[in-house]
Each structure stands twice: as structure tokens, then as C-alpha cells.
């Protein structure tokens, strides 16, 4: 019965939203963009290769490219070819308050879609699948999470990885000493200088940090996934008209196969600033997410299925 109810609801909703954009009164973010002539885009400074600053201090990355496609769609829908794009830097801690406060309209970073965050914000369909691992110095002799017992671990404040690592520490009673840090670059610096032995982060970002390190071969990314982290573009909650445009643009990228080109550009080709190739083939879970676009968030336990 539930299925039929959902179907009826879906058909009704489809009918409701099928009206052409220009025929209905613009609301929420779309109205704001139309009125001000500007779309404000949040970006990160060191989330390689999703959203970071290149050697000319311009925001670039896989997430930024996808956002640009979304903005093209918004330009077309609103008939505003000259729509101005304003980039605003955000951090792990500021991204949600800045978005809900209205200083950015869309966040193109490396944000995990979690059920908890969905209470505050909405997400576009997942565009990358990753999870928490740790980066350590090879010389540290750390081979797994068990070796962290009584050691110092640095984390970036406001990340899902912080929660995953702390939950693991509480569960296994490892007695880890945690030191907080304000961004990924500083967390990595703590490992580099020996202040901490490990830094838990989404594995893909760890590969990015390692690639940009002074001596990449001194470091390794180890451990099995402590959490699942589906990345998605973030927008304000309760704005179905805007979400529909964004979701539509992302889904179109997936259906046309254009996403593969963008993926290859950032994960399997040399990327700025050092022209390093991360060489990460598309994972099966990401292929699945592209085949069936969805905005399912990770549960409170840190896994997709709790």
C-alpha cells in the first residue's frame, strides 16, 4: 500500500512541478538570484581535487566544474546569460551557517551528505563516494587503527571524520589524545611535523594531500573505512524550486555521460597546481550513484545502512 501511496504522491508532485518555470512566480533562491543578478558560490581552499585554489588563486575542481554546469542551467532557466558568479571561500565549520545565513546560495566543496545535516540543509544527488581512513608517516610504524592506542591524532574541526574517529575511539577505548585543527592543510602539517601520528579524513582528500606533500613517499593512507561519505552539493533547505533545477542539472550530466569527462579531468589526469595525476579510477559505488542519482545521506552511525 505504501508503494501505491508514494506513487500517487510522486505523480501528483510531478504534475505540480511540470509547469514551466516562467509561468510561475519565482520564489526563494531563484528569486534572489533573479533580483540581484548574482549567484554566490561557496568553495574550499584545500579540498583537492574537489574544490581548491589553483596557482592563480582561482577556485577549481571536480565539484566546482559540476557547479558551473548547474549555473549554466540556472542561466538558461532564468534567461540571464550575464548572471554574475561570485565565489566565497568557506571552511568545514563555516559552510553551513554561511549557507543558511544567505551569504552563499550553493556550496561546491567536499561536503558529506548526512541525515543529520539534512535537518539543516538540502543536498543535490551524490557526486562522489568516499569514506574515512587515516594518513600516517611510513616511519611511524602505525599499521592500523589499533596502533593508535594512547597516541595523538589530529582532526579538522567540524568534519564527519572527527565524529567517526571519536566514536571508534570511545567504542574501542583506545585512549587517543585528540588535537583539533582548523583546516586540512594545518591538520596535515601536524602529521608532517610529528605533533600527531595520524589524521583521519576522507581517503580521497588524503590522497590529494599526500600528492601535494613535500615528500609524498613518506606518507601512506591506511585502514578500512571508518565511515561512508557520499559527497554532494549543498543548498538551503525548503526551497523545492531551486533544488529541482540543481537536481535536474546534475542528473542531466549523469545521463549524458558528461560526468565521465569531468571525472577523468580531475581524477585521472594531471591537475593543478603541481600537475600530479591522482590516478583514482571510478569506484563501483560511484558508478551506481551515477546510474541511479539519489540524495540519500549517511546515517547517524556513519554508514549508509545503520
Amino acid at each position, binding site marked *: 500500500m505504501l508503494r501505491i501511496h508514494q506513487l500517487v504522491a510522486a505523480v501528483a508532485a510531478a504534475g505540480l512541478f511540470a509547469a514551466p518555470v516562467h509561468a510561475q512566480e519565482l520564489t526563494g533562491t531563484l528569486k534572489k538570484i533573479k533580483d540581484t543578478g548574482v549567484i554566490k558560490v561557496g568553495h574550499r581552499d584545500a579540498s583537492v581535487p574537489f574544490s581548491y585554489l589553483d596557482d592563480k588563486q582561482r577556485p577549481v575542481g571536480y565539484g566546482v566544474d559540476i557547479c558551473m554546469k548547474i549555473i549554466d542551467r540556472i542561466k538558461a532557466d532564468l534567461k540571464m546569460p550575464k548572471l554574475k558568479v561570485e565565489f566565497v571561500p568557506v571552511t568545514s*565549520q563555516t559552510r*553551513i*551557517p554561511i549557507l543558511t545565513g544567505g551569504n552563499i546560495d550553493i556550496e561546491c566543496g567536499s561536503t558529506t551528505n548526512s541525515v543529520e545535516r539534512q535537518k539543516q540543509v538540502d543536498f543535490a544527488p551524490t557526486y562522489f563516494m568516499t569514506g574515512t581512513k587515516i594518513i600516517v608517516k611510513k616511519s611511524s610504524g602505525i599499521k592500523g587503527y589499533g596502533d593508535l592506542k594512547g597516541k595523538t591524532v589530529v582532526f579538522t*574541526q567540524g568534519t564527519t571524520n572527527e*565524529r567517526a574517529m*571519536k566514536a571508534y575511539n570511545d567504542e574501542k577505548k583506545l585512549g587517543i589524545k585528540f*588535537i583539533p*585543527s582548523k583546516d586540512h592543510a594545518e591538520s596535515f602539517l601536524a602529521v608532517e611535523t610529528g*605533533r600527531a601520528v595520524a589524521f583521519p579524513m576522507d581517503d580521497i582528500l588524503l590522497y590529494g594531500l599526500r600528492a601535494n606533500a613535500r615528500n609524498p613517499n613518506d606518507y601512506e593512507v591506511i585502514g578500512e573505512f571508518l565511515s561512508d561519505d557520499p559527497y554532494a552539493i549543498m543548498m538551503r533547505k525548503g526551497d523545492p524550486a531551486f533544488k529541482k533545477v540543481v537536481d535536474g542539472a546534475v542528473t542531466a550530466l549523469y545521463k549524458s555521460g558528461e560526468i565521465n569527462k569531468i571525472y577523468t579531468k580531475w581524477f585521472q589526469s594531471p591537475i593543478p597546481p603541481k600537475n600530479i595525476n591522482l590516478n583514482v579510477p571510478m569506484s563501483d559505488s560511484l558508478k551506481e550513484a551515477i546510474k541511479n542519482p539519489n540524495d540519500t545521506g549517511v546515517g547517524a552511525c556513519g554508514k549508509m545502512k545503520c
Partner: protein
Amino acid sequence: MDFGFLFQPAFSGGGTYLDWVLSGIKWTLCLSVLGWIIAFTLGSVLGILRTAPLAILRVPATLYVELFRNVPLLVQMFIWYFVVPEIAPKGAGDWLKTQMPMPEFWNGVLCLGTYTASRVAEQVRAGIQSIPRGQVNAGLATGLTLPQTYRYVLLPMSYRIIIPPLTTEFLTIFKNSSVALTIGVLELTAQARQISEYTFQTFEIFTIATVVYALITLTVTFAMRWLEHRTRVPGYIGGAGK
């Protein structure tokens, strides 16, 4: 505004979010008060040296003040925490990074203390120089040595004169202590940010933090006003109070 989240069990560590706030207040007070002790002691010495007749005493104090006063506090935090252990001898550097208890806290105290000392030094100097030259001469003429003149003539008056600007510095150190969050000290502002991240009650928790900072600084203001009144010399400058 809903402050109910304060009594919810916190994500990690076993207590409630209220415990996080209290722990933040504790670290803010510890950082600021210990930092102030360093700032007042070191700043007094430097301030006196800056008025010394010998260049060998005056020049190092001047260099110190110009260095610490002109580099942003945020940068100084970073240097104490990340750079000093790297340029220290290997054994000492490793101790600073891995063996030292609460490295981020003591780095924060040291940084706040040495930075504020440069500002206190300037006020002590200004206080001493505001006293008419004739008083030094009179002190020396009565047979006191120069250090005795400082001790019995100049300093008792100059400290009284600079109580109001010193109050400002003392208030500033409480507010500046929030910069220590950049090296990972979980003081009040850091806890507020962390709680906001976990509970999304951003406005509530920053309201609490604002009120706490205001209460701390108001208490300090009143205490310093009381001190000013208590140490007033009747008939001399300003006449703070009745």
C-alpha cells in the same frame, strides 16, 4: 531560542553540552590569567628598562616591544606552535611536540603573555615618563640611588596613573585568548563553534558565549575600578572616585 540542548548528552566524552561550555570557560580563564601574569611581570620589567639611562638596557627592551607589538597575534600563535619546535634543537623540538603536557595550552599562554607584555611595557614606560623630571632629581638629591628612586618615587605613582589603560589590556587579553583556538585550545569560542557544529544551535550557543565574555570583562572592570579607588592618593592626579 531553545537552550534545551545544553542538557543533552554530548557527542563524545560522556558529559553534556553544558560541560563543554564550562570547560571552555575554564580554559579561557586559565589562558587569560596565566597570560596576564606573564604579561604584567615581563611588561613591567621591559617598561622600566625602556626608561633606563643605559643604552645596553634600553635597546633590547625597545627591540622586544617593536617585534612583539608589530606582528599579528594570529601569526605569533602559529610561530610558537608550529615553527619554534622545528627550529629548536632536535631533542627539545621533539619534546615540545610529543612529550610536553598540554602543548597547545602552554603555547597559548606563552604567546598571549609575551604579546601582551609588549603592550604593558609601553604603558609602564608612558606612566614613568609622565612623572615630572623634577621628582627624579629630587629623589636623587635626597641621596636615593636610581633604583631606589624608581622603587620609592616613580613606580608607586606611575602604576597608579596607568591603572585605567592597564584595565583595557587586562580586558583585551580575555578577548584575545580566543585566538588560541587556531592552535587547538578548546577555550570558550572554540567550544561554542564546536557545539554549534554538533547541535546546529548556532545563535543560542554564541549568545551564551557573548554573555559569558561580557560577565568576565564586567567583573574585571569593576575589580580594577575598586583597585583604582583603593590605591588612590588623596590630592594627587585626577581623583578617581570621591
